[in-house]
């Protein structure tokens, strides 16, 4: 029983990353009708925002220490970070420790800006073009973004730790009267994604802006005929989608050390999630994200693997095939969206 609860928890936690990325993808699909292969790259850039903030905070000056030697036998250069020398070791250390949460503040404007530039500078010109062209141009863009990051940060993963206070494990089983230990940061990640998803939904549901965007998603032309500048709103939505992907990336860094190709690793999976959820459906994307996360977690249990060897390798695809064959437009897809 504990094992099952643990895997459900694990699935929710995995699913939250899928759901966040899929949510952004669907926003772009739904509003702009663009197949954005660069969405994974946005997730990756978000993660590297955290890396950059961490590096900036630990920028340091070097003092030559004659008593110690480096690997070549020369005097060792001891590094002290500026932050620590300004705020004192304790406060400075705490600031560096909290680099990832601090990165959120920086990542939001940066990601929105990147989103705007991408939409205005490139994607805008592809609204009327074929999906194939959109795929080619966004794929090209994804490669370029990825290679630029690789040029500056290298190919190896870079560790970006969570704050000391939020690492370690917590006993979530206490709620059910058992003992289930789960990493604190992963629980934080889950609640973070719930907040973001809730925020996006209420924004679309309860604001005038959101209402117009929803109307535009349903029937862009009519809304345009009403004299509403839907394009500007869609640009803003692109920025928001980019920010969601970026935030998902920032918060993901302590879970797994980011590297330059992490976006591509998530890309295929997030497309599967979006399509399983149904094209153009935001709740569908979120639901599919969590569902696939949980199924993936169950498939990796030894008990399941002993019955169906290798099932954890293909579970996502098996589920995708079953759902698409039984429900023509995924879980909650709208008719006529990306069907031609």
């Amino acid at each position, binding site marked *: 029983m504990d094992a099952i609860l643990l895997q459900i928890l694990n699935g929710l936690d995995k699913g939250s990353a899928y759901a966040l990325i899929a949510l952004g993808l669907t926003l772009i699909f739904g509003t702009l009708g663009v*197949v954005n292969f660069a969405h994974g790259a946005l997730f990756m850039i978000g993660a590297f925002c955290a890396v950059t903030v961490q590096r900036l905070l630990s920028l340091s000056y070097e003092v030559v220490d004659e008593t110690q030697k480096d690997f070549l036998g020369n005097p060792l250069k001891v590094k002290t970070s500026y932050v620590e020398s300004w705020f004192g070791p304790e406060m400075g250390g705490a600031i560096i420790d909290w680099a990832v949460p601090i990165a959120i503040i920086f990542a939001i404007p940066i990601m929105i800006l990147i989103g705007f530039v991408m939409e205005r500078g*490139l994607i805008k*010109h592809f609204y009327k*073009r074929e*999906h*194939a*062209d959109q*795929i*080619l*141009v966004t*794929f*090209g*863009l*994804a*490669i*370029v973004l*990825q*290679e*630029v990051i690789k*040029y500056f940060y290298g190919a190896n993963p870079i560790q970006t730790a969570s704050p000391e206070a939020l690492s370690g494990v917590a006993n979530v089983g206490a709620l059910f009267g058992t003992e289930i230990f789960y990493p604190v940061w992963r629980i934080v990640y889950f609640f973070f994604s719930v907040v973001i998803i809730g925020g996006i939904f209420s924004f679309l549901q309860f604001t005038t802006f959101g209402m117009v965007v929803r109307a535009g998603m349903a029937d862009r032309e009519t809304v345009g005929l009403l004299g509403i500048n839907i394009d500007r709103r869609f640009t803003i939505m692109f920025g928001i989608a980019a920010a969601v992907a970026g935030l998902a990336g920032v918060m993901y860094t302590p879970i797994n050390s980011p590297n330059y190709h992490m976006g591509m690793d998530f890309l*295929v999976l997030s*497309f*599967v999630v979006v*399509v*399983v959820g149904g*094209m153009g459906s935001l709740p569908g994307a979120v639901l599919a994200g969590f569902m696939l996360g949980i199924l993936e977690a169950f498939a990796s249990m030894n008990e399941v693997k002993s019955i169906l*060897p*290798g099932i954890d*390798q*293909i579970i*996502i*695809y*098996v589920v*995708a*095939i079953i759902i*698409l*064959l039984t429900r*023509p*437009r*995924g879980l909650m897809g709208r008719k006529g969206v*990306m*069907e*031609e």
Partner: protein
Amino acid sequence: MFGLDNKDTRMLLVVAVLTLCAPFILNPFPTDSAMAQFNAGYPDLMQRFVIFGIFAIGFNILFGLTGYLSFGHAAFLGVGSYSAVWMFKLLSMNVVPAILLSVVISGLFALLIGFVSLRRSGIYFSILTLAFAQMSFNLAYSVLTPITNGETGLQLTLDDPRILGVSATADGSIPVTSLFGLEMRSTFEMAVGPWAFQFNAGYYLCALILLAAFYLSIRIFRSPFGMMLRAVKSNQQRMNYTGLNTKPYTLAAFVISGMYAGLAGGLMASMDPLAGAERMQWTASGEVVLMTILGGAGTLIGPVLGAGFIKYFENIFSKINDHVLHGWFSFMPDGLEDFVVFIIHPFIGKGWHLTLGILFMLVVVFLPGGLVEGGQRIAKWVKGRKNKDDSTSATKTPAE
């Protein structure tokens, strides 16, 4: 000629001349010159050009005609390769049975996947094909290792039970693939002054098969069947309303293009008897999509151009390193030389992906019809210069 109209005959002849003279065309620089780095006329790369050309032509029969975007075509290439290598291991080193088997097996595999996937259209179809291909890849990499040899890839060994042939040659090596005794790897080298041209038996086999595949694709494009597929692309619903069941047509197109992919896979294994699981990964499927769009989807020659373009960058640009750069620019003053090398450095060697990504974007932004449109624009410009007076009469040629 061959049941083609004049324009198509001309195009087939152009392709024939280009492929058959490729060893000359691709080696324009003398072997000892600094520019020889850009020579692509060595057997392996020439083989890859035509093999991926065949793959892309096949993909285009499905995508260019029906508009169905398969994101799992690499699976058929992989299955073709595995079948061919197994044929070498079990039956004989002759490439004919291997290629035949790979076409048949991948055709059957395509029939199965196509039958299921074609129940959906649009992006739902794409994801279904992607899911099947990724499943094949993941299983081939791990669980199916007894059949596929997993990570390492299926290779020939010294103790293969080859029914028609020997397990190992007299001197203790693994026998090589051949066409009725003509070794696929045998190469004749011709030296003309400072140039060296390589003529490889395997390449010419691939080239002849490419020509046949290209001819078949022209016939399909021009046939009533091709017209029907185009009608599916422009409006499937209307077709259905006329009471016509389009599925047999699309399925036929899917299977044909799967067989092309299998043929490409079989040829790859025939040139180099190894079959790896990576050939089925989604990135490999994505590559053929990119080749086709880059060259010009729906055009006859475009996919071949796209395939050549990507393979050229992969194999030539990745081999340029800083040493080579310094060699090229050594005539410059020291400071300037270092500066130029510094500027170019991010785009070559390990940065070849970056160059490729930038070129993707440039092509799709400035040449909406792909490389074919670029060619047309150049042709038009040349024409326009030739007869400046009646340049207005130059009509836009359709992208085929």
